[in-house]
């Protein structure tokens, strides 16, 4: 048995308690010699993999085998990485805890009674629990950064348009990006280099010059201007999280960064605007699941209406139903201007505020999550309280800017993450600053 094959067996055994994977691959040696040769990766189950079951953690796609690879998967295969399997997540990426999965919740490797965050919780738990070297996640309102923070790993949401969404099964398509999740900043930068590539099959993909992120990890940070919005430390922020994040900011200041506290008043509207837009887009994007062309198909129905409604009754979980209905409401006649259009205008307001801040500062810093990882089941019956978990992450998706979560401390062995945001397509600045945080904390990169 090869080293990889025996490790794969260990991973399958370990997965029984963590439930990071929904489907394992048939292990094959890669024919490509590339930058990721010998490395293993877990792929979030919202990303299409040719010949490998892709469920979106939903009963709707229980037996769906995509006929094509997402662009990011084609790129990764050329780099020689071994795909171990498809990682658990909240159904169709709708959630912040990976409890809304039709295949059972993922458990946080740091404490099996707690959530790993979501929606890319399986991806984060796979990396944190040593069930993969890397992972890919997708982030619509914090779905990479939240589980990265809760599992104590590095996770980056790229600028909207940097990474092709071709083959990512859509939830909130104007907000989401596929992004890298890894044990440290170097690995995260390496994976980003491998997946950021222009692709004309995603019309929102931007054809920029490629950047070698790994080459910019030791740039000097003296004089770097850091803005700390007070709104990120609002009501509901755990004092332990606040202290850990501020301790890190203070250390960056002593390394030569210039720190200033600021206010971004529009941030307080970001969560409401985000959910209205994401749910509206979800109601439209998930209309494709009609049970006719692929996915769940429940027998004979008297007409199309009955077939459609019946398949969605059994195919979708409760959170997906809730979001589709709220989105349908926000787009319906009589409410469209009051909710959807208003949310779009607020989105522009927030985007403009961020642009103004980045004309004066290089980075915005705050906590990734307002709290430590919560217990499984704690917020499951209270959707609004679950939505509130995303309060600090959604504004980056509304503005389309890059944002990364880096481990900055822990409390009773539960990880705490610090969030760094920069201007559009300036991933290298937050990766460099993230690397500095690892150096300060004495973490060695490869």
């Amino acid at each position, binding site marked *: 048995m090869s080293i990889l094959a025996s490790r794969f067996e260990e991973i399958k055994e370990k997965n029984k308690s963590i439930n990071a994977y929904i489907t394992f691959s048939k292990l094959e040696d890669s024919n490509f010699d590339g930058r990721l040769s010998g490395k293993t990766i877990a792929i979030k189950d919202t990303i299409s993999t040719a010949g490998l079951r892709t469920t979106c953690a939903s009963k709707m796609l229980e037996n*769906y*085998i995509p*006929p*094509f690879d997402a662009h990011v998967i084609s790129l990764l295969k050329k780099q020689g990485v071994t795909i171990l399997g498809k990682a658990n997540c909240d159904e169709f990426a709708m959630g912040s805890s990976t409890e809304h999965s039709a295949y059972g919740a993922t458990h946080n490797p740091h404490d099996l009674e707690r959530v790993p965050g979501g929606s890319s919780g399986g991806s984060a738990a796979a990396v944190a629990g040593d069930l993969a070297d890397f992972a890919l996640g997708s982030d619509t309102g914090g779905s990479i950064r939240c589980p990265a923070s809760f599992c104590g790993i590095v996770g980056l949401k790229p600028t909207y348009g940097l990474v092709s969404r071709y083959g990512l099964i859509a939830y909130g398509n104007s907000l989401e990006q596929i992004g890298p999740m890894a044990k440290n900043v170097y690995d995260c930068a390496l994976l980003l280099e491998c997946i950021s590539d222009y692709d*004309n099959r995603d*019309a*929102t993909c931007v054809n920029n010059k490629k950047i070698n992120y790994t080459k910019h990890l030791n740039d000097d940070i003296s004089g770097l201007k850091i803005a700390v919005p007070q709104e990120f430390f609002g009501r509901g922020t755990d004092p332990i999280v606040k202290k850990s994040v501020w301790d890190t900011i203070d250390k960056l200041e002593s390394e030569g960064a210039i720190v200033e506290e600021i206010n971004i008043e*529009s941030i*307080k*509207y970001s*969560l*409401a*605007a985000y959910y*209205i837009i994401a749910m509206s887009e979800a*109601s439209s994007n998930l*209309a494709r699941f009609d*049970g*006719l*062309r*692929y996915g769940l*198909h429940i027998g*004979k*129905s*008297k*007409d*199309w*209406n*009955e*077939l*459609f*409604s*019946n398949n*969605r*009754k059994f195919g*979708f979980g*409760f959170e997906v*139903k*809730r979001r*589709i*209905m*709220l989105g*349908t*409401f*926000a787009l*319906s006649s009589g409410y469209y201007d*009051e*909710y959807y259009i*208003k*949310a*779009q*205008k*607020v*989105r*522009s*307001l927030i*985007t*403009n505020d961020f642009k103004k801040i980045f004309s004066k500062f290089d980075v915005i810093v705050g906590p990734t999550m307002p709290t430590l990882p919560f217990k499984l089941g704690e917020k499951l019956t209270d*959707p*609004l309280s679950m*939505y509130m978990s995303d309060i600090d992450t959604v504004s980056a998706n509304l503005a389309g800017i890059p944002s990364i979560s880096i481990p900055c401390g822990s409390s009773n062995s539960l990880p705490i993450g610090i969030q760094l945001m920069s201007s559009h397509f300036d991933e290298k600045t937050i990766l460099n600053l993230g690397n500095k945080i690892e150096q300060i904390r004495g973490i060695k990169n490869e």
Partner: protein
Amino acid sequence: MSNKKTIDAKKYSELSKIELSTKEMEILNEQFPEILKYFDLLSQVDISENIDTQTLSNVFREDVSVDSIADKILDVVPEKKDRFVKGPRMM
């Protein structure tokens, strides 16, 4: 009209083409007013001044043919006749 704004779960389940159980309907009717109240936070935002809307532009590509995966896509269709998806009557 009641002061408490809400969303009629039955009406929107029909519009969304999702059949709900009685229990699901009850839970949603209970949760929707609270969620809607939170969304109404946006009514406080003054958007009377001119806000730059995001600059959007069309993206075009050359009209050249590429390999099709139509046959592979048809492979996953649950019910079909020849190269057509077979469905129930519309009405």
